[in-house]
């Protein structure tokens, strides 16, 4: 394929291609209409206002998810893994919804509750979604999804994150958030944070055009900038320029007084493009993929609220950028919902229904297209309520399965290996574009998910006692300062979450510096030597292992019995009991230790730095 | 008309057309010699501005000096050579050519009786030559490129300044290093950019022989981007002690040349990202008391023997002659 491209390219090498980025996505043969499931304007009722949608009025989604998944498994003759144990579930749901492992008391509490109460899982899900820590979790998730860890200082990070937090705390809909971001110009101070998406991409035309497609529509049109995509038949140059046309009149304006950068916009200018392969020329009005083009209203050409010059930020009477925000979030734009539903599914399930998350097209359809459409449509009906979507996914059997695909009993280990091998193969095949086996591999058991840098930081701090120790100290400080009022405030979970977020930020940043690659939301995993060295020798984690007051090491050293100590150690770090082999090994280390403190530190570290801790499973 | 530097004004603008480098008036005041990036030298009639130009070195010329009678001009080239030319010849042909240094010859000067010519270069050496181009002495001791040389008028000592901000005082007869003046702020090392920067761009002595002055630059926050300001250092000749630093605050540039005028005023030419200036200092004060902004950045300067005219070379291909008196009616 690339040979063909190469020869083909020789013919056009004298043509100028400013982006020669030919991502060749392995496409399935066959001509499928672009974005086949979104032709034209379907008859869709207008989007409900988020506030008017009551969750209890909505039909439950999770039974429909399971119906589709179960049918697909049945059709493939594969049986699903066992439901996750309560221990497996509690660690997983804490990580997914509030971004850290449960404390040992929280684990115990849930295990007791679950033994007696059939609604324990649902109640825990609701409690976690209501907790202030869910706000923090989603702040990280949305930041990574939208800003893709690119930094930038035009809008300070703190202001942007505060805006995200408030949006999540208010349970703003995804369409509200997207609308704010895509229409932002950064001119007014209080409305400036969402302009980060544009301003900290320097509003570079090719970057923002591409990222509007990637982040909000799940399509990467970069390769279609210079020509219709050579390998993806449905990525057309006019798709790229359709998005570009919403933005091409906007420009970066630096305010003379504040020196701040913001967006101005002109009231005229059309987009034209030439294929570097065929030299065909084209032009397009603003349009989102295959939705109809949007003509400028009559008589708006050249009409300004504020005419642009060197010192005046241009504000047109009719803003195409504003139109982008409206068109993007309009109810008929199901691609907008498919993208976010896919991303939330990936967050919970460990793998997008479409992978990579930003390469959805006819040749790379969803592993389960019906399921994706279901999620997208129902999300729209909910008023684009992400919290509701996460709740429904969390309630599904598909989510609540064990991550061990097959119970491995000693007697049938050989069979298990065979099955595992076939599943591995299926997973590999899926990478080459065959969707059916991937669907099976995806839905048969829960996938393991690498902890994000932030999940890892908060989990390590939770386990080693850093979080609780910091909380206790800050609470005491407040009570001392403000007496009863202080003590009361210190019990407020909102205060606690916010205070901890600030107090422990530098630790989280250190983890992020090591563990975050650049780029946006991904579901793959890889690891570097630097990260391992950070865990092995880094002073941060080593310091937390010291037996100071309130540390896990200190707590464990109070336990004299080696068996009890090993049990507690496993429960605290991994949220489970050791098996017989593990218990024996740990007791033997403790029993033979000259330096018990060192032995306990070593054992804690061994669990903390193991793969079992590194992943959500 | 008497010297009045506050009335300094541009008298002539003579065009050569290619970016200019250095210039020097001939001691009798008949001619001004200059050099250009096109490797040529120019000789200007100091009154009429009439010029000749000729191919001289295989590279740029950064400095000139004259034998005392003014009949021989010596050019210092970036082609490693110094060349002796007849000053007034209709068509100058080299009288003597000397392969003087390994690397650029950055500077040249002649002693009071014309018996010795000193040159300094990128090989970190200072060399003394006889008027017929024979090597007399080689003075080693600089650790970086030699940027400037200056004979004390008494003839006993030679001063040479380098990129490190050091000025060595050599005893001419013995070649011994007598002492070193350290103008520390005229050098800096920028670790981020990995560059040494600054240097003693020019050296001179006051008419009463009491004050040694040198110029260059400081505040080099971004050497590669020309963010720096001119700075002079004054030393007491007798004691060798630093008397004062004279920063030209707020002017972005490099002090390229320094001279004392007949009333004791120090005249400094500055060129750089802030444009071209003539800066006027009093030896007893830190700040310049007057300046004249020139039309284009300055690259070289020379004061006419009459003490009233000053020539500057410019990037825009012009020589500008400024007069430091009231304008003629």
């Amino acid at each position, binding site marked *: 394929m690339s040979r063909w491209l190469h020869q083909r390219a020789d013919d056009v090498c004298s043509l100028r291609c400013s982006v020669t980025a030919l991502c060749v996505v392995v496409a399935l043969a066959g001509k499928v209409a672009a974005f086949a499931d979104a032709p034209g304007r379907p008859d869709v009722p207008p989007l409900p206002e988020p506030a008017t949608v009551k969750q209890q009025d909505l039909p439950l989604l999770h039974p429909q998810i399971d119906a589709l998944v179960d049918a697909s498994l049945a059709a493939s003759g594969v049986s699903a893994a066992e439901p996750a144990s309560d221990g497996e579930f509690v660690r997983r749901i804490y990580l997914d919804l509030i971004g850290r492992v449960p404390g040992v008391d929280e684990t115990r509490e849930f295990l007791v509750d679950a033994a007696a109460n059939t609604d324990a899982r649902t109640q825990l899900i609701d409690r976690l979604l209501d907790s202030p820590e869910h706000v923090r979790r989603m702040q990280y998730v949305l930041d990574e999804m939208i800003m893709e860890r690119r930094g930038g200082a035009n809008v300070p990070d703190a202001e942007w994150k505060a805006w995200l937090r408030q949006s999540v705390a208010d349970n703003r809909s995804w369409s509200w958030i997207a609308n704010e971001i895509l229409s932002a110009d950064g001119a007014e101070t209080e409305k400036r944070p969402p302009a980060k998406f544009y301003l900290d991409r320097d509003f570079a035309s090719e970057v923002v055009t591409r990222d509007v497609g990637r982040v909000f529509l799940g399509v990467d049109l970069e390769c279609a900038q210079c020509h219709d995509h050579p390998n993806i038949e449905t990525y057309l140059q006019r798709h790229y320029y359709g998005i570009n046309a919403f933005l091409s009149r906007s420009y970066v304006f630096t305010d003379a007084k504040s020196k701040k950068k913001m967006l101005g916009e002109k009231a005229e200018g059309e987009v034209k493009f030439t294929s570097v392969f065929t030299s065909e020329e084209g032009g397009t009005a603003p349009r989102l993929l295959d939705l109809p083009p949007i003509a400028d209203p009559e008589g708006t050409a050249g009409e300004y609220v504020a005419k642009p010059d060197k010192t005046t930020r241009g504000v047109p009477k009719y803003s195409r950028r504003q139109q982008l925000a409206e068109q993007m979030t309009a109810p008929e734009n199901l691609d907008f919902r498919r993208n976010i539903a896919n991303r939330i599914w990936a967050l919970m399930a460990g793998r997008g229904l479409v992978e990579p998350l930003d390469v959805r097209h006819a040749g790379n359809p969803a592993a389960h297209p019906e399921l994706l459409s279901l999620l997208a449509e129902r999300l729209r009906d909910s008023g684009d309520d992400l919290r509701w979507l996460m709740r429904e996914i969390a309630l599904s059997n598909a989510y609540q399965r064990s991550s061990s*695909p097959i119970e491995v009993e000693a007697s049938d280990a050989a069979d298990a290996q065979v099955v595992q091998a076939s599943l591995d193969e299926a997973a590999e095949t899926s990478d080459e574009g065959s969707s059916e086996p991937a669907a099976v591999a995806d839905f048969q*058991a829960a996938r393991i998910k690498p902890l994000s840098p932030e999940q890892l930081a908060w989990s390590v701090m939770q386990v080693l006692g850093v979080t609780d120790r910091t909380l206790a100290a800050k609470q005491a400080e407040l009570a001392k300062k403000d007496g009863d009022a202080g003590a009361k405030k210190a019990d407020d979970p909102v205060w606690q979450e916010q205070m901890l977020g600030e107090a422990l930020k530098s630790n989280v940043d250190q983890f992020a510096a090591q563990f975050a690659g650049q780029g946006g939301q991904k579901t793959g995993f890889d690891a*570097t030597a630097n990260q391992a060295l950070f865990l092995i020798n880094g002073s941060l984690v080593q310091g937390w292992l010291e037996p100071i007051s309130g540390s896990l090491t200190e707590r464990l050293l109070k336990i004299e019995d080696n068996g009890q100590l090993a049990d507690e150690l496993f429960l605290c770090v991994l949220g489970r009991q050791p098996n017989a082999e593990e218990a024996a090994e740990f007791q033997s280390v403790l029993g033979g230790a000259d330096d018990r403190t060192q032995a306990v530190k070593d054992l804690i570290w061994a669990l903390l730095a193991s793969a079992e801790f590194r992943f959500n499973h | 008309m008497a010297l009045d530097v506050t009335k300094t004004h541009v008298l002539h603008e003579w065009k050569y057309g290619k970016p200019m480098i250095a210039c020097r008036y001939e001691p009798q005041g008949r001619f001004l010699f200059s050099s250009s990036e096109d490797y040529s030298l120019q000789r200007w009639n100091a009154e009429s501005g009439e010029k000749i130009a000729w191919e001289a070195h295989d590279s740029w010329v950064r400095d000139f000096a004259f034998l005392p009678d003014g009949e021989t001009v010596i050019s210092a080239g970036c082609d490693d050579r110094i060349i002796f030319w007849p000053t007034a010849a209709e068509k100058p042909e080299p009288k003597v050519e000397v392969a003087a240094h390994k690397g650029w010859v950055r500077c040249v000067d002649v002693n009071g009786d014309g018996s010795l010519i000193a040159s300094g270069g990128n090989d970190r050496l200072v060399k003394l030559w006889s008027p017929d181009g024979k090597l007399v002495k080689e003075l080693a001791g600089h650790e970086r490129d030699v940027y400037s040389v200056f004979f004390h008028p008494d003839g006993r000592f030679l001063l040479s300044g380098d990129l490190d901000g050091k000025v060595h005082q050599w005893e001419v007869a013995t070649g011994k290093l007598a002492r070193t003046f350290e103008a520390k702020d005229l050098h800096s090392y920028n670790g981020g950019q990995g560059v040494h920067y600054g240097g003693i761009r020019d050296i001179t002595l006051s008419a009463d022989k009491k004050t040694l002055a040198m110029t260059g630059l400081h505040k080099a926050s971004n050497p590669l981007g020309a963010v720096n300001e001119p700075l002079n250092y004054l030393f007491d000749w007798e004691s060798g002690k630093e008397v004062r630093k004279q920063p030209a605050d707020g002017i972005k540039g490099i002090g390229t040349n320094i001279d004392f005028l007949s009333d004791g005023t120090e005249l400094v030419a500055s060129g750089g990202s802030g444009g071209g200036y003539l800066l006027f200092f009093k030896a007893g004060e830190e700040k310049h008391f007057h300046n004249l902004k020139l039309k284009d950045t300055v690259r070289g300067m020379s004061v006419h023997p009459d003490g009233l005219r000053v020539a500057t070379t410019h990037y825009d291909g012009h020589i500008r002659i400024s007069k430091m008196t009231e304008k003629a009616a």
Partner: protein
Amino acid sequence: MARNIGCNVIDHAVSRRGFLGAASAAATVGGLLTPAQAEAVQSGQKRILQLFLQGGVSQFESWDPKPGTKYGGPFRAISTSVPGTQICELLPHTAQRMHQVSIVRSINLKTNDHGQGRLFMEKGRRAGEFPYIGSVAAKYLSPKNPPLPGYLHITTRGLTDNTNAFLEAQHAQMRLEGVQAPANLARPDKVADEAARRREEIRSRLSQRFAGRSGQKAFVESFESSFELADRLMSQKPLFDAEPSAKDVERYGSHPFGQRCILARKLLENGATCVKVTHHGYDTHAENFNFHLEQLGEYDKTACMLLDDLHDSGMLDSTLVMIYSEFGRTPKVNQRYGRDHWGASVSVAAGGCGIKPGVVVGSTNPEGTEVADREVDAGDLFHTWFQALGIDSTADHTIPGKTIPIGDPTKAPIEELLA
């Protein structure tokens, strides 16, 4: 286009000004090799040495001199060990080794922006998320269990880039702060070797057990391999700790660039796949000539000592040496004797593995203002580097969900440069 035939013959003119040191006699004697060098040669591994002249070295003051022309500046051209090939007088040591190095003089990058130029040179693409040369090399040239991270960059400045793009994180550039060891390489004082070994064994067993019952072994394998690489890297700590020998310091220079090149040699000898050394200080908007004197004066001898050592140990045949910048500098000399950013007529030099030595590809017009012949860009260079290393740059990276051409399919290797 001249190709050298007689190897050690140095054009007499090179030393006409007598300020060049005598050419060091290259002695390739097996007995003189250190065990690391011998193993590096025998392993068959191919590798890259990148000497990156950050800021944009002037092509006039290096590989494409134009003395005596409108924009030529004060420096002259000198002859080299390749008859007919001249380079700037600021590179006298390189001139003596020109029969080992080739030049491309006809690069048009069409950008004058540091970031864009650097990314283009590194990725072979003008835009988009693509891995750097070093990351691609790390992926395809590193042995299965490499003793060192595949792509190491010795520098003290510069941006943290997403060098591996869509390739696995272990192929990302590991940045070394000058000659300092990587962060966290030293075991804390309180952790004894024995205890460290024990806790690592326990950790590893737990991970293996987890791998056995999880559905995605590949994730766990990747995680575990990062610990194995960390372990191997820790055992390489002496490479960073050892003071360079007096002889090395004398030859390479006591300045930071000398130290960094000594470390680069050690890293290459000990199994690194791509080592990039950045030499700063070429963004000469002012005093271009003074700064090039200073910077290239430091660069030339040091780089040649490194080249000699690679040559003498026999490693040069398997080491691609790239000498490059993000772009070049303007023909026009500005008011401050500076030269500004210039992408339209840029030169690079290369040698070693797979590169035909002593070649000059392309040319610029007499005043150096544009490419006159054989225009290429960084996309073509990218193909050339990998073809030289024996990697089919027209093949694809295969990553989950898509395949991506290694080199830009609209570009092609520069065949004249390939051995």
